[in-house]
Structures are given as C-alpha cells and as structure tokens.
C-alpha cells in the first residue's frame, strides 16, 4: 500500500478503513440474525414424530402422533433420539452455510496497517519537529 503521509490522505484512509470495518460488523450482525432465524426440522420415517431445532441446536418443539404412543418405550426412545438429531443436523447445515457466506464476504478486508505505514509517519513527524 502506498503510504505517502499527509493529514488529508490519512483522514481519508481512516474513513475508508472505518467504513470497511462498519460494513464487516453489519455483515456479522446479519449473519447472527440469520442464525437466530434458522429453523431445523426433523420427521420420523413414518411421520409419527416431528421435532424442531433452532440455530443453536436447541430443541424448540416435539410433536407425537397418537399412534406413536402405541410403540414400546425403548422403540419410542430410539425414534425420538433420531428425530431430535435430524432436526439438529438440519439447523447445523443451515448455520454452516451462513457462516461460510460470512467468511466469503469478509475475506476481502483491507490489509492491516503495516510497519511502513507507521514508520513513514514517524519520519514525517520527526521532520516536522526538526
């Protein structure tokens, strides 16, 4: 990056960097909002059990068809395990996609200010003082 020191140039540069940074924070907040809105659903093969997971893997809903109550408890337990896991896997897939998009969007952040940038300015200050 060309680093000719000047107060005006630097002010502009700071504005641009802050602008990029604010944009990154907005993108981050959107991703967070997206994750909060994720709904992952699971349904058993026979449709008798359903479950819903949020974007953090928390189970928010489970529903049992009356016919599900005729299963023996170990079979019902097994199917409940499966339907909860399916709902979680579904929301995990969605949050991963959101995070991948986030990474892609924030990939082109401006490079951090380097040594040259700082030393150019120190020299300039020294010259102005001297």
């Amino acid at each position, binding site marked *: 990056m060309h680093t000719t020191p000047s107060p005006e140039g630097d002010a502009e540069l700071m504005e641009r960097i802050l602008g990029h940074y604010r944009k990154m924070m907005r993108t981050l907040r959107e991703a967070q909002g997206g994750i909060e809105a994720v709904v992952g659903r699971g349904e058993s093969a026979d449709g008798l059990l359903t479950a819903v997971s949020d974007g953090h893997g928390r189970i928010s809903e*489970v529903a*049992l068809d009356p016919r599900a109550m005729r299963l023996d408890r170990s079979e019902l337990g097994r199917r409940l395990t499966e339907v*909860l896991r399916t709902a979680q896997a579904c929301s995990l897939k969605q949050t991963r996609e959101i995070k991948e998009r986030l990474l892609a969007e924030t990939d082109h952040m401006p490079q951090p200010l380097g040594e040259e940038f700082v030393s150019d300015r120190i020299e300039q200050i020294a010259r102005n003082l001297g």
Partner: protein
Amino acid sequence: MASRGGREPGGSTDPAAGREAAPADEMLAWAESAREDLDGVTGLGESASGQVQVTVAAQGEVLDVTLGPRALRLDRVTLAEEVVAAAALAQQDAALKTRALMREGIPGFDPDEVVAQVERLSSLL
C-alpha cells in the same frame, strides 16, 4: 474474585498481577491438551416426571433419549413437552460442565466474563 478493570489483551507478564489476565499462550496450550476432556463432556437432563432422560454431547448434540417405565402413561402433549425440557436441561448441564472445566484449567479465567467482554466490545462497534 479478581477485579475486572484494565485487563491486558495480551496477558500480564507480571506474576504478581495474579488473577488479572490469563496469558494467551497458556490458554492455547491448555486448550490443546484439554480438547479430549472437553470433547468427552456429556450433559444429562431429566424431565419433571423423571420419565424422560436426554443425554447430549459437549456441543449440545442429542445422543440419547431414554423413556422411563411410566412414560407412555403420560399424554402425548406432556410427553413431548418433557422431551423438550429434558433436552434443554441436558444442554445446560453440558454447558456448565464445559465452563467448569475451563475454569479449573486456567486460574483466573472466567468464560462468562470473556463472553460479557466480547458482547461489550461488539456493542461499541
């Protein structure tokens, strides 16, 4: 409890600073060695009637739902609600155990305070 003000991001190099900050490299070393312990954490939650038990993995992934002998005497709505509740309790249990492991591993490290600090920082931006 240590005071929270003026925590150095890079960690204090002065041992006398005591519990003020955990050096970053110490945290990293701990994290690598503790990964097995952390991965092995499971959370257990039991519903109000005791007829539903849910086990989750460290990150909250459901591992097992076990129904007690009287579970099928519950009506299906109550049973469903108890599954939801037991899963939530299991996830809370896993989170508590994880935070306890972190606190034990690094003197002065408070995971909740880190979360609070991150939230304070991000509200400034």
